[in-house]
């Protein structure tokens, strides 16, 4: 048996158990909040990036009375339908700043003897011009979709190879898209425009719920803007050139949420920074108290041959152990809360919501842990340094 600095530190932490717990807890609260908020912010950022990348379109041109519906569709994935003449597409293509265009038609899947799953958005896209789905097809499927094949978004409850019925037509799922966090895509079913048209016309005979959408109608024109122009600028050119349409800039829709959300998250972050400073001060005060209480003991250790650095190390060891423990507990608690309330967070923030990439996640954890660790270290630094520098005799006398 022998006796070590670690052993002495451990006993000291147990001595005032509740005080130790209080210190660890305050670090846990700070680390947990900071970790949770940054994780949510990171998730928002990530899902927006992925969503816009997957959509591939800078501007979405829709009928002017459908602007709000279109925004809601892009943002929250609301399933809504609206139609305009397909001739709009040619006008858009000719508009200033437009690099590429592609039409889409939206059909809502309904309940009751028509479709396997209700409230899905069926999107007909034009394989010749599309830039939303085609990149994925090229990369993953390496062929075009057959007329009875569909692709499903990540949230659609069907797997590759399974069949789905819409308006009397049976389709085979050829692939499932990865999660984008954007319900506009995740909750949609994609089919070539040809198939959509066929489904519409055959619904009159095959389905009890016929669709009444004329051949020359489309729902939206997706636009890729010439890099030399701002999307917002191109959008204005389009609205000026064509009557009866509105241009929804996807970046704007998404960044407006981001702005609102970030204002909210930032204020929470501010609160947690204030919390952090308070924890820092509190732990500093507590450690001053601890060191004062133990001044005579510290003097004794010094008299028996403990070096200044040994005494300093002993106190820092205690602080480090408590803050590391607090950090781990806080981050674990934050993680558990984030995970168990992920649906609530998703719903209440009205955002597509994803976990960050594993590497980013690991970084967030590491940074939060380091911060927690530093909290204890920084708070104990001054008391530890002061008490370890005191003359042994002075320290012993102070305890009298």
């Amino acid at each position, binding site marked *: 048996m022998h006796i070590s600095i670690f052993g002495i530190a451990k006993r000291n932490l147990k001595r005032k158990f509740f005080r130790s717990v209080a210190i660890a807890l305050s670090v846990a609260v700070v680390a947990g909040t900071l970790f949770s908020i940054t994780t949510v912010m990171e998730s928002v950022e990530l899902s927006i990036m992925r969503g816009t990348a997957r959509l591939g379109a800078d501007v979405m041109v829709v009928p002017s009375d459908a602007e709000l519906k279109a925004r809601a569709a892009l943002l929250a994935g609301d399933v809504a339908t609206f139609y305009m003449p397909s001739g709009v597409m040619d006008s858009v293509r000719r508009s200033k700043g437009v690099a590429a265009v592609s039409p889409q038609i939206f059909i809502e899947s309904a309940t009751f003897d028509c479709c396997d799953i209700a409230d899905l958005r069926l999107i007909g896209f034009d394989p010749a011009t599309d830039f939303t789905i085609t990149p994925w097809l090229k990369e993953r499927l390496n062929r075009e979709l057959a007329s009875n094949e569909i692709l499903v978004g990540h949230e659609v409850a069907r797997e590759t190879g399974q069949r789905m019925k819409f308006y009397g037509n049976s389709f085979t799922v050829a692939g499932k898209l990865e999660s984008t966090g954007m319900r506009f895509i995740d909750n949609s079913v994609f089919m070539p425009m040809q198939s959509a048209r066929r489904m519409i016309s055959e619904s009159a005979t095959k389905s009890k719920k016929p669709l009444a959408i004329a051949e020359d109608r489309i729902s939206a024109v997706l636009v890729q803007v010439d890099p030399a122009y701002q999307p917002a600028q191109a959008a204005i050119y389009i609205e000026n050139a064509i009557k009866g349409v509105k241009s929804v800039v996807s970046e704007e829709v998404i960044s407006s949420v981001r702005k609102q959300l970030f204002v909210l998250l930032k204020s929470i972050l501010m609160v947690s920074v204030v919390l952090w400073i308070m924890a820092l001060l509190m732990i500093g005060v507590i450690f001053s108290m601890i060191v004062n209480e133990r001044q005579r003991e510290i003097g004794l250790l010094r008299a028996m*041959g*403990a070096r200044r650095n040994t005494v300093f190390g002993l106190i820092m060891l205690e602080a480090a152990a408590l803050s590391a423990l607090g950090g781990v507990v806080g981050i674990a608690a934050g993680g558990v809360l984030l995970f168990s309330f992920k649906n609530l967070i998703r719903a209440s923030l009205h955002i597509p919501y994803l976990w960050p990439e594993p590497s980013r996640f690991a970084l967030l954890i590491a940074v939060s842990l380091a911060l927690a660790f530093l909290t204890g270290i920084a708070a104990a630094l001054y008391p530890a340094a002061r008490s370890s520098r005191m003359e042994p*005799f002075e320290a012993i006398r102070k305890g009298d």
Partner: protein
Amino acid sequence: MIEIKGITKTYRAGSEIFKAVDNVSLSIGKGELMSIVGHSGSGKTTLLSLIGGLTRPDSGTVVIGGTDLWSISDDELSAFRNRRINFVFQFASLIPTLTALENVMLPTAFGKWDGNVAAKAEELLGMVGLGDKINNYPSQLSGGQQRRVAIARAFINDPEIVLADEPTGDLDEETEADIFQLFHRFNSEKGVTFIIVTHNKELAAKTRRQVRMVHGVMGES
């Protein structure tokens, strides 16, 4: 082996300067056993702390075995205390979170030690009559027992010098005599140098050399 030359230690209380130890010179040979007597407040504890390198004198030098305590670094001084000096303090000096045995072993936490430290600590506790209390915490020991643990601790590092400040203050007469006997034994068998502050004139008389402190000034008696 201990050469003290003109050490003075002053305290400042407000505007007044108070000399707790006033120009004390003392030469103590190896293996001596001496006692310091004096009224309370005469500077005995301060003097012992100066000899043990626990506080820096305002002037004068303390040289032990050729080493001027205040010419070496603080780390070297710590190591010096750890290896060559040990203390019995005037007040309760046990760490409350450590058992009697661990308290005795405590000095060995600050250096490298060969041999079975725990066995040695146990043996020392036996010598002070606490062989059956080695796993008791200080709160489970009487004041006198705590004092004896502190005395056992003073020998764990095989010190050359033991500085004992009223080491038997709270012991009954019989135990007090036993402890003094223990000191004499370590002194004659191992050549440990003792400087003992005591109020017990009888026991002081039994030491080979006595000095008296009066208002910080030293006089042989």
